[in-house]
């Protein structure tokens, strides 16, 4: 980046004025704001908001500012620069991530990839009851209820929350990597089971 180019912070250009409004909105927001939400609050065209965001992304970039603008969880938000992580670590806790167990991560992965998904489905895949793990993830705000399965008395289903995307630094769930196709894997395991089991039958 052309890091040494001086930036005039005060100008009366309309884009700069809009950029200041967007800055103001982002510094008080409790969650990432989409371009549409910013446009509605600023009472502006989404295209002009995009222009302002591009300007701000340059100004609030890693290495250039302690405040960094990031596109996360379907919106825009400020965070601390990574270079300040040590200082932040001395002052702030990370309650959402603290003590996420292997079981929680497995459950989170299942909900992220297959959600909305019910507790019985999670239990079936993991092979153990999922109640307390699911409750823990709901309490942390990483997953939330998302309707019920069809039919009377259908089980509650869960999906991941925007906080999940934010904590894992994802713009959206589509950023999750594709995993190996289940079909192939199954064929492979099946073949190994059979070679062992059927040799005995012969």
């Amino acid at each position, binding site marked *: 980046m052309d890091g040494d180019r001086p930036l005039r912070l005060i100008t009366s250009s309309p884009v700069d004025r809009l950029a200041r409004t967007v800055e103001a909105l982002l510094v008080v927001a409790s969650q990432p704001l989409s371009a549409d939400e910013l446009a509605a609050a600023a009472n502006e065209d989404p295209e002009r908001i995009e222009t302002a965001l591009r300007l701000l992304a340059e100004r609030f970039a890693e290495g250039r500012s302690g405040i960094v603008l990031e596109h996360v969880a379907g919106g825009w938000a*400020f965070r601390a620069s990574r270079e300040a992580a040590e200082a932040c670590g001395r002052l702030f806790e990370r309650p959402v991530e603290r003590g996420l167990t292997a079981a929680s991560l*497995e459950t*989170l*992965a299942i909900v992220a*990839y297959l959600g909305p998904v019910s507790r019985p489905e999670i239990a079936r*895949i993991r092979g153990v009851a999922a109640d307390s793990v699911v409750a823990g993830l709901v309490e942390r705000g990483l997953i939330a209820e998302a309707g019920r399965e069809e039919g009377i008395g259908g089980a509650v289903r869960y999906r991941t929350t925007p906080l999940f995307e934010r*904590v894992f630094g994802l713009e959206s769930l589509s950023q999750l*990597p594709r995993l190996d196709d289940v079909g192939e894997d199954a064929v492979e395991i099946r073949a190994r*089971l059979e070679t*062992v089991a059927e040799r005995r039958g012969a």
Partner: protein
Amino acid sequence: MEVRELELDLDAFEGPFDLLLTLVLKEELDLAEVDIAGIVIAFCERLAERGELDLEACGEFLVLVAALLELKARGLFPDEEAELLELEPEEAAEELARRLAEYRRAKEAAAWLAERLEGEGDRFFRLGPAPLAPRVERRLAPQEPAVLVAALRALAAEPPAVSLAHLELRFPPVSQFLERFRALLGRRRVFDLDAELDGMTRIEQAVAFLAVLELRRSGEVALEQAAPFAPIRVRRAESETERRPAWTGTARSA
């Protein structure tokens, strides 16, 4: 080293590993009875005897033990088990392999998430409202003072008199029937309960029945009924021991 030839000596099964697997897949052996830790120990002992690490055997073994664990975990979910029991052994094996693959995929995804979390350890952001954020405005449409008056009048209204109608169901004392039945048994060794209850109200019948149960509990009578809903016959208890109330026991006489 051939994993399938691993000799097992477990409580529920004795023989080579591949036979165990065959029996399990054909559902001729209940996995609930199989000590999977025992299989792992047997494998480790065998591995130690050989003194060298056979990676291929270890990989094979892990897949198979994982399959057994999955099958065993299935027992935790009776609905699922019923569903799986309908499958032919062939289909069950296929279903098992599919699930194992699914679980493996979840584990891979979890590993990716764990790595991601590690990489994001230096990303700090604020959770919750900003310190000097504007207060969320909850605006209320104009209201009529009359709603306040109505609310207070409702609070000041005398509570409706509680209906005592249900208390008028009068229950006769159980003792009344106890005395009556004891007197009856003084004259007759046995009587027919239905005949005695005839003509009583439902409530009296209920209390009379309680009295009979009380007499039975204290050992004063024995009850006979040939079949459900057949007439109940109440017989005076014969011996002294039979008459002694249960709670005095024999300890007291000792």
